[in-house]
C-alpha cells in the first residue's frame, strides 16, 4: 500500500509538471489542444520558437534551455507515460478491477487528472481531439482486434454479425433519433434548437457500441464462443457502420431540411452501401497486397512486422481519402490477411507483430479512456438538460433491447443453434458506448448544430453511464444468468482425471459431429482457397513447412510398415518387435522435475484447480527450463513421490490439455498460446503407434496361416513400387523432397481416396477460417495444406497403399482388412484395439 501511495504521489507530480508545461503553452495559444498535436500546431511552435533565434548572443552558451524545441513531442510522451502509469496503478490492486472494469477505473482516474489540470490552468487545456482519436489512436486498436480475430468463428457467424452490425445499428440510430424528436415535440425537454435531422444525427453517433469494455468482462467470465464472437464482431463492424451512418446524416444536416427529397434519400442510402462495402473491399485489396508482399519480406526480416502495421494504417488512410469507411477497411484487411501473413512470415516476426499490436492497442486504449475522463472536466461542454439526458439513456437501452431481441428472433428462425435467451439478454446489455461515440460527438460542427455542447455532454454521460455502471453490473449479471456454469470441484484426483476425460470426450464428439458443420459454400471455398488463394498469397515453402511433423510421421509409419515386410520376409516370423523410440527423437526427451522447487507453487495453486487458461503458462514455465535428464534428481524425485500433493501435481502438470481451453482466441491484453505443439505431436505419435500396432497385431494373428513364398516376393515388389517415394523422404526428412513426396502420394491415391483427410476434416480444419492459425501450433495447421500427409494409417486408402495390389482379389491376408468386407476380419481387429493399450505401457 505504501507503494501505491508513493505511486500516486509520483503521478500527481507528473501531472503537475505536465500542466505547468501546458500553462507555458497556454499563454501563446488559447484553445490549444493536446496530443500528438497535428502538424500545424507543431509548426506554430516552431515559428514562435524562431522568434528568439536571431537574437545575437553575447557569449557562447554551454547549455541552453530549449523547451520550445521539444514542447510538443515532450508533452505527448509525458501524457502517454502518465496514462500508462494510471493503468499500472489501477492494475496494482486487483480488488478494484475485479468489481469495476478497468475501463471504468481509467475513466475515473481521468477525472482526477482532469481535475488537476483544471486546478492548475483554470481551463481544460487537454482534451481528446477527434482528429487525433481517429487518426492516431483508433487504427491500431481496430487492427489488433481484426488481426487477432478468431477467423473461423467470425466467418461462420458472419451472417448474424452483419445483421446485428448493420440492421441493428440503423435501427438504433433511427429509433433513438425519432423517439427523442418525438419527446422534444411533446415538450419533454424544454426549448432546444434541434431539428429532427439533428436528432437523427445524434441517434447515429450514439449507436456505436464499444468492444473494449464488454470483451474485458467476457474474458473474465468464460462465456460461450458464439456469444463472444457475436458481441465482438458486432461491436467491431458496428463502429464502421456508425461512422458511415453518421456521415450520411451529417450530409443531410448540411443539406438542410427543405432540400431533402426522395432522390436525396435514395442517394443517401446508396452512399451508405457504397461507403460500407467500398471500404470493406478496399480492405480486402490491401489484405491481398500485404499477403503478397510478405511472400518476399523474409529478406528484411527485421522490419517484416512493421510492413503489416504500415500497410494496415495505409489502408485506413486510403479509405479515409476516398471517403470510404476507414474502420471497415482496416478491419477486413486484418481479418483477411492474418492467415497468409502468419504462414509467410517467420515465427519470430509473427510474435513481434502480435506483441507490437498489443502494446499499441492497449496503449491507445488506455489513453482513450483516460482522456474520456479528462475531457469531462470542462465547464464549456456541460449544458444540462435533465429531460434530454434521461430520455436518451432510457431510449438507447430500450431500443437496444428491442432491436437485439427482434433480430435474434429472426435469426433464430434460420439458425441451427439458436441464440439462447440468456445470450440475447447479455448481448443487449453489452451495448456499451465508448470512445467512438464521443469522438463523433466532438466532431459535430457547431455552426450546423447549435446544441453541440448539449449533445457532447450527453454523449459523455452516456459513455460514463454505460461503461461504468453497466460495466460493473455486467459481470454479476453474466454470472447470475450462468449460475450453473461454474464448477470448481475437481479437488480430488478422480475429479481431475475425469474432468480431463470429459473434455477429451466432448472435443472428440465435436470432431465427430463436424463441429462447425460443413456446407456447400465452405467446401467450395476451401477448394478454391487451397488451390488458388494459397498459391497466390503464400510462399511455396510456407505451404509445405507446416507439414513437417505430419510428414515425419508419415515417413516413420511408412518406414515401419516397410521394415515390417522386410523383417517378415527375412525371418519368416511375423512377430513385430521394434524399438520405436529409436526413430522418435522427441520422445526421448524426458524431463526431470525438481519437486522441491515446485512445492511452494503448488501450495499457492491449490486453491484454484479449475484448469483455467491461466494455468497454462505456469505449466509451460515449469516444464520448459529443464530439457535434459539428470539421473540423480530423478532418483530423488522417486523417493519424494509419496504425498498426495505430488500426485495432484503430476496430474495438474502432465495431463494432456484439451483443445477446449483454446477457444476464445482474441484476448485484449495477451495472446494465449494454445495447445502445446510438442504435446500435440506426442499424442499424435502415440495414437499413430497404437493404430499401427493394432494393425500389425491383427496381421500377426492371421498371417501365419497364409504365408506363402510367392506372396512374399509379390509383396516385396509391391512395396517397392508403392513405397518408392519414401526413400528420399527418409534420408532428408525435412528436405525439399518432403513436398514432392506428399504431393506424389496425394496424387497417387487421389482417385481412390477422394481426399479423405480433407473431407473428414472439413468441418474442423476449414483452412480459411481456422482460428488456431494464429497459435502457430503446427499440428492444427498441418493437415489442411496437403492431403497427402494427412492420411492416417487407419484410413482405408493408406492401408490400401501398404497392401500389395493383388490383394484386391479378396485374399485372406489381413492387410486387406481395411478394404475387405467388415464382417470377415473386422471383429478380430476390434479386439486387438483395446489390447494395444497394453503395448504403450
Amino acid at each position: 500500500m505504501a507503494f501505491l501511495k508513493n505511486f500516486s504521489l509520483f503521478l500527481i507530480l507528473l501531472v503537475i509538471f505536465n500542466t505547468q508545461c501546458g500553462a507555458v503553452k497556454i499563454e501563446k495559444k488559447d484553445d490549444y489542444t493536446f496530443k500528438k498535436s497535428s502538424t500545424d500546431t507543431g509548426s506554430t511552435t516552431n515559428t514562435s520558437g524562431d522568434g528568439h533565434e536571431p537574437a545575437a548572443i553575447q557569449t557562447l552558451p554551454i547549455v541552453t534551455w530549449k523547451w520550445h524545441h521539444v514542447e510538443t513531442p515532450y508533452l505527448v510522451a509525458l501524457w502517454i507515460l502518465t496514462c500508462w502509469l494510471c493503468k499500472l496503478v489501477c492494475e496494482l490492486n486487483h480488488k478494484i478491477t475485479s468489481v469495476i472494469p478497468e475501463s471504468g477505473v481509467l475513466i475515473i482516474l481521468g477525472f482526477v487528472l482532469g481535475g488537476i489540470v483544471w486546478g492548475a490552468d483554470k481551463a481544460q487545456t487537454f482534451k481528446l481531439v477527434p482528429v487525433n482519436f481517429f487518426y492516431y489512436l483508433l487504427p491500431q486498436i481496430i487492427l489488433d482486434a481484426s488481426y487477432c480475430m478468431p477467423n473461423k468463428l467470425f466467418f461462420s457467424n458472419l451472417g448474424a454479425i452483419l445483421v446485428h452490425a448493420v440492421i441493428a445499428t440503423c435501427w438504433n440510430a433511427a429509433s433513438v433519433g425519432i423517439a427523442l424528436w418525438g419527446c422534444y415535440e411533446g415538450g419533454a425537454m424544454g426549448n432546444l434548437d434541434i431539428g429532427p435531422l439533428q436528432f437523427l444525427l445524434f441517434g447515429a453517433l450514439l449507436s456505436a457500441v464499444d468492444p473494449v469494455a464488454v470483451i474485458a468482462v467476457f474474458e473474465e467470465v468464460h462465456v460461450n464462443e458464439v456469444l463472444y464472437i457475436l458481441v465482438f464482431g458486432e461491436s467491431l463492424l458496428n463502429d464502421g457502420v456508425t461512422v458511415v451512418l453518421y456521415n450520411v446524416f451529417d450530409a443531410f444536416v448540411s443539406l438542410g431540411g427543405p432540400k431533402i427529397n426522395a432522390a436525396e434519400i435514395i442517394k443517401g442510402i446508396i452512399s451508405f452501401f457504397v461507403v460500407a462495402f467500398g471500404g470493406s473491399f478496399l480492405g480486402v485489396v490491401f489484405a491481398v497486397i500485404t499477403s503478397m508482399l510478405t511472400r518476399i519480406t523474409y529478406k528484411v526480416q527485421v522490419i517484416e512486422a512493421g510492413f503489416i502495421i504500415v500497410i494496415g494504417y495505409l489502408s485506413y488512410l486510403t479509405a479515409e481519402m476516398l471517403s470510404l469507411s476507414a474502420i471497415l477497411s482496416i478491419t477486413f484487411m486484418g481479418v483477411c490477411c492474418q492467415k497468409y501473413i502468419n504462414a509467410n512470415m517467420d515465427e519470430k516476426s509473427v510474435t513481434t507483430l502480435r506483441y507490437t499490436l498489443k502494446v499499441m492497442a492497449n496503449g491507445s486504449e488506455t489513453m482513450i479512456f483516460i482522456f474520456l475522463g479528462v475531457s469531462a472536466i470542462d465547464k464549456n461542454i456541460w449544458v444540462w438538460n435533465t429531460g434530454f439526458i434521461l430520455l436518451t439513456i432510457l431510449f438507447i437501452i430500450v431500443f437496444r433491447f428491442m432491436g437485439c431481441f427482434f433480430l435474434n428472433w429472426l435469426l433464430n428462425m434460420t439458425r441451427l443453434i439458436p441464440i439462447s435467451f440468456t445470450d440475447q439478454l447479455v448481448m443487449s446489455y453489452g451495448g456499451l458506448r465508448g470512445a467512438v461515440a464521443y469522438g463523433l460527438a466532438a466532431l459535430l460542427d457547431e455552426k450546423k448544430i447549435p446544441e453541440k455542447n448539449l449533445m457532447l455532454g450527453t454523449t459523455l454521460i452516456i459513455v460514463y453511464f454505460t461503461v461504468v455502471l453497466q460495466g460493473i453490473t455486467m459481470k454479476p449479471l453474466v454470472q447470475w444468468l450462468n449460475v450453473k456454469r461454474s464448477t470448481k470441484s475437481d479437488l480430488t484426483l478422480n475429479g481431475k482425471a475425469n474432468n480431463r476425460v470429459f473434455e477429451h470426450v466432448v472435443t472428440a464428439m465435436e470432431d465427430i459431429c463436424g463441429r462447425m458443420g460443413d456446407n456447400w459454400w465452405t467446401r467450395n471455398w476451401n477448394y478454391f482457397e487451397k488451390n488458388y488463394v494459397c498459391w497466390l498469397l503464400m510462399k511455396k515453402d510456407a505451404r509445405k513447412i507446416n507439414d513437417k511433423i505430419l510428414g515425419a510421421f508419415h515417413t516413420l509409419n511408412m518406414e515401419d510398415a516397410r521394415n515390417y515386410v522386410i523383417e517378415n520376409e527375412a525371418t519368416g516370423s511375423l512377430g513385430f518387435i521394434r524399438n520405436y523410440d529409436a526413430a522418435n527423437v522427441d520422445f526421448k526427451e524426458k524431463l526431470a522435475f525438481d519437486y522441491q522447487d515446485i512445492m511452494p507453487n503448488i501450495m499457492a495453486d491449490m486453491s484454484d484447480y479449475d484448469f483455467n487458461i491461466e494455468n497454462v503458462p505456469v505449466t509451460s514455465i515449469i516444464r520448459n527450463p529443464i530439457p535434459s535428464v539428470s539421473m540423480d534428481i530423478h532418483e530423488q524425485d522417486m523417493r519424494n513421490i509419496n504425498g498426495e500433493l505430488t500426485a495432484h501435481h503430476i496430474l495438474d502438470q502432465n495431463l494432456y490439455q484439451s483443445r477446449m481451453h483454446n477457444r476464445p482466441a482474441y484476448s485484449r491484453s495477451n495472446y494465449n498460446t494454445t495447445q502445446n505443439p510438442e504435446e500435440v505431436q506426442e499424442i499424435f505419435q502415440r495414437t499413430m503407434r497404437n493404430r499401427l500396432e493394432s494393425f500389425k497385431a491383427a496381421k500377426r494373428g492371421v498371417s501365419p496361416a497364409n504365408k506363402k513364398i510367392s506372396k512374399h516376393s509379390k509383396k516385396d515388389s509391391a512395396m517397392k513400387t508403392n513405397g518408392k517415394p519414401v526413400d528420399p523422404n527418409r534420408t532428408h526428412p525435412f528436405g525439399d523432397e518432403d513436398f514432392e513426396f506428399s504431393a506424389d502420394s496425394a496424387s497417387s491415391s487421389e482417385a481412390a481416396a477422394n481426399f479423405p483427410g480433407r473431407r473428414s476434416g472439413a468441418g474442423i480444419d476449414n483452412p480459411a477460417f481456422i482460428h488456431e492459425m494464429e497459435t502457430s501450433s503446427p499440428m492444427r495447421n498441418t493437415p489442411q495444406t496437403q492431403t497427402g500427409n494427412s492420411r492416417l494409417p487407419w484410413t482405408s486408402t493408406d492401408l490400401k497403399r501398404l497392401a500389395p495390389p493383388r490383394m484386391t482379389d479378396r485374399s485372406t491376408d489381413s492387410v486387406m482388412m481395411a478394404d475387405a468386407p467388415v464382417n470377415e476380419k473386422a471383429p478380430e481387429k476390434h479386439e486387438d484395439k483395446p489390447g494395444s493399450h497394453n503395448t504403450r505401457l
Partner: protein
Amino acid sequence: MRCFDVTRRSVPASLMKLYKSVILNKQIHQPPMLIEHKHTHAVNILQLFTISTAHIIRLHDRFKELDTERRGYLCPQDFGAIKGLAINPIGDRIIGAFFSPGRETVDFYTFVKILAHFRPADNIRPKESSSPEPINSRTNKLKFVFQMYDLDKDGKISRIDLLKALRGMLEMQVTEEQLDSIVDRTIQEADLDGDDAISFEEFRKSLEKVNIDHKMSIRFLR
C-alpha cells in the same frame, strides 16, 4: 436398442414424414435392420433422443461424409480418418465406444444414439415419472465416461484399467512409479468397499459435485 418402450402416438405426423424422407428414402445407406423397425426407430430417434429434425439431417450429412465408401455404415477406420481424434489422447477409446462388442460397424441409428448422450439436458422435466430415463441424463453420461475406462467391460474400473487410461492421458515424461502412485491414490480415493476397483456407484459418488450436464454437452446438439 429395442428395449426402449415408447408410445408412438406422441410423434407428430410431420416428423414421421420428415424422418422418412431423410432416412428411409435413402435406404441404400441403411442396413436392412433399420428399415424393418422403422416405426420404432422413428419414434426412438425423434422422441427418445429428442434431437430436432434439423440436427438429424445435419448428423445424417455428417454420417454420409464420414462414410467415405458409401456403405451405409461406419467402420473404425472411418473414424480414424478424423484428424481431431488422432490428436486426442483417448481418441481410440472414444471410437471404441461407438462399436458394441463383437460388431465392427455403426449404423446411423447407433451413431445418433451415441451422440445423443451429449445433448444438453432439457430444462423441462418430463411430467410423468414413468417415462424412461432420457439418454442424455446424468447417469447415462456418466456411464459413457465409465465405459471409457472400463475396457474389459467387467463393470468395474480395475487398477489395470485405470493405469492404462491414465498412461494414455499423461505425458510420456511421467514415470511408471509416478503413475503407479497416482493410480493407487486415485483408487483409494474413490474406492468405498475396498475391492481395489471403482464400481459405477463409486464412480458416480466421486463425481457427485461435478456438473456433468455442463461438462458433457455439446452445443451443437441443443
